[in-house]
């Protein structure tokens, strides 16, 4: 091969390798491209998400949205964190409530109040309390995209068999325990209730008993307060003393959802996302009610929010996209049709459509639960706190530590390792 040919060949090779670099990033003039990293659609709602985005692009021809969808389990967080750290943050990204606090505390997403003013978007479109849930230091930090609450799901057939009245909105721990005892007495492998013994459950249940993990000023932990010890004891007693809930051995790897569907669980706490599946699989009558409290009520609230990266070059377009995805009537309808959690708009007619869709009856409990929603503490080291407390609670669950020892140890370790 002559020298000229050889050089030509090498050049060609190099060119084919670097050519893709120039291909990307080229767009039609006047069209802005924004990237949206998201996880909550997963496989199940990928099609619905696609339709929502297509709607947006049809109405906004000057904005092109590139979806970057990953499943929750596919290392979504790891990849998102790495990209933000590497300076390649997507313009918009979806977070759940727990990560929302972690990202906001670290300044990865920008405040949105200015964009509300600039674009003339009204804050009143959103359901009551939802913008408060995504506010931090008085600033709105995200657009709530969807939410769900956790309610008490119960098997009416088992309640009837046990001749026990159905749960009501003002039920307390004692009422629930009494009913659970009667249902458990119905037979072998029939259980009154299922409430997991872990950190997430604990931080909510302590608030039903007038406790909390920190003092009001956030300067000290109160993990081992008398109310909290009493609460953990109550959670443990359901398994070991009253035996209305299966031990891990008795549960034998069976998911709680399957136990409920099989008619083996009287009461089960779960989110509204379970309804679709229950509608398909459950053959007995079932109902829902607000979760029982003790001194007060406290419920879990889950939300997925859309954030705008601090580094985006197109904040206005991204804002337009995120608010469209949360509030556009057609998008909201798509979400309702897919039963993909709940839309965040305040429009009562939208909610009426949701409430009318039964079973279960009494869907108003889903919305009423929102009044008692508790937020996890806003802490830079929140994940570490979760791990510290959860490890000790698991030891108590398995009978290795008493409720008091577990929480004393958690308090000591949290105080040592976590800066407040």
């Amino acid at each position: 091969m002559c020298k000229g040919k050889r050089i030509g060949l090498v050049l060609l090779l190099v060119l084919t390798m670097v050519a893709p670099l120039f291909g990307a990033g080229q767009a039609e003039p006047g069209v802005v491209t924004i990237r949206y990293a998201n996880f909550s659609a997963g496989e199940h709602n990928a099609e619905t998400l696609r339709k929502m985005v297509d709607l947006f692009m049809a109405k906004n021809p000057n904005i092109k949205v590139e979806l970057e969808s990953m499943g929750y389990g596919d290392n979504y967080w790891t990849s998102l964190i790495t990209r933000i750290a590497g300076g390649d943050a997507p313009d918009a990204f979806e977070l759940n409530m727990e990560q929302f606090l972690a990202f906001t505390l670290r300044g990865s997403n920008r405040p949105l109040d200015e964009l509300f003013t600039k674009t003339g978007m009204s804050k009143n479109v959103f359901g009551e309390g939802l913008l408060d849930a995504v506010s931090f230091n008085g600033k709105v930090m995200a657009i709530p995209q969807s939410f769900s609450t956790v309610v008490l799901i119960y098997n009416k057939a088992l309640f009837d068999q046990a001749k026990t009245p159905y749960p009501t909105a003002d039920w307390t721990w004692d009422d629930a325990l009494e009913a659970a005892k009667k249902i458990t007495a119905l037979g072998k492998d029939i259980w009154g209730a299922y409430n997991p013994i872990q950190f997430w459950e604990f931080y909510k249940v302590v608030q039903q008993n007038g406790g909390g993990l920190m003092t009001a000023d956030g300067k000290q932990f109160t993990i081992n307060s008398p109310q909290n010890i009493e609460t953990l004891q109550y959670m443990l007693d359901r398994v070991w003393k009253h035996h209305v809930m299966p031990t891990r051995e008795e549960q034998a790897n069976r998911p709680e959802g399957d136990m409920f569907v099989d008619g083996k669980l009287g009461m089960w706490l779960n989110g509204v996302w379970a309804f679709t599946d229950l509608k398909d699989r459950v053959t007995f009558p079932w109902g829902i009610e607000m979760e029982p409290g003790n001194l007060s009520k406290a419920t879990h609230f889950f939300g997925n929010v859309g954030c705008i990266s601090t580094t985006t070059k197109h904040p206005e377009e991204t804002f337009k996209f995120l608010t469209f995805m949360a509030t556009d009537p057609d998008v909201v309808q798509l979400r309702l049709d897919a039963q993909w959690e709940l839309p965040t708009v305040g429009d009562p007619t939208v909610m009426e459509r949701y409430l009318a869709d039964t079973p279960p009856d009494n869907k108003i409990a889903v919305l009423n639960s929102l009044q008692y929603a508790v937020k996890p503490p806003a802490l830079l080291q929140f994940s570490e706190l979760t791990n510290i407390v959860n490890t000790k609670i698991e030891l108590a669950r398995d009978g290795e530590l008493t409720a008091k020892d577990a929480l004393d140890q958690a308090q000591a370790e949290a105080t040592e390792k976590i800066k407040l």
Partner: protein
Amino acid sequence: MYIGGTRQKRIALIVFLAPAIFSLVLFYILPIASSLVLSLLEYDPLRPASDIKFVGLKNFIEYFKYQDMREQYLHVLYYLVLYIPLVLVTSTMEAVMLNRAFKAKTLYKVLLYLPVITSWVAVALIWRWLLHGEYGIINIFLRKFGIQGPSWLHNKLWAMPGVVMAAVWKDTGYYALIILAALKGIEHSYYEAARIDGASAFKQFRYVTLPLVSPTIFLLLVINVIAGFQVFESIYVMTEGGPAGATRVPVEQVYRNAFTYYKMGYASAIAWVLGIVIIIATIIQFRMEKLWVSYES
């Protein structure tokens, strides 16, 4: 670096080595070097770069100070003490068996190698059932002998042996293949000589086979200690470090600190401590090598 030969030869050498050196530098040397720098910083990946702080040895001091480090290394030692003897014995046995002539040998080879290429997620799924306290086949088997087996993965003491069993099952085929290659390399005349001298089958194994494969077993030991200290995948998918932290190991903590706690500096410090521990362990093994490894020539 000195490279002999003509100029052309040297250029060719560099051209051929370049891709390997390039990826070595880019994917190994640079990350290792940057993790050393990171270990001296307080670096939260979600925060702006201006928040990065130099903290000297603070990450290392904290790691040494907390209870965690001691616990993690005890767990990893527990794993090593169980896993290494077991996997070496089973893979040697398997190799010796496969070294004989018998019917459908290829089929056995394939079957025994299958677990090696199975993904850990699938293995974990199966073994979680096998190890189930009530309905698991292992405990049902034990019950036949009147032994009440533990609830393996839910028990603080027995979770690690549970993981080890799954790991041994999965890895045996791989190491057996390496030992088998070593067995094939033993000249037949040694066995003939031993037989003429009246050595029994066991004595042949003990005084001919074992010494001659000892360099291979040594290699496997070194590899296994290194890999064992870095155990992660199996634990992550089988127990996630539980129950109640009973199977937390250093690499799991590296991952957790980096991507759950956003403490890249601290995670790097844990990784460096682990690296140093592994280097020390390997040096000790090489020092002990002459005590039991025999080389033919």
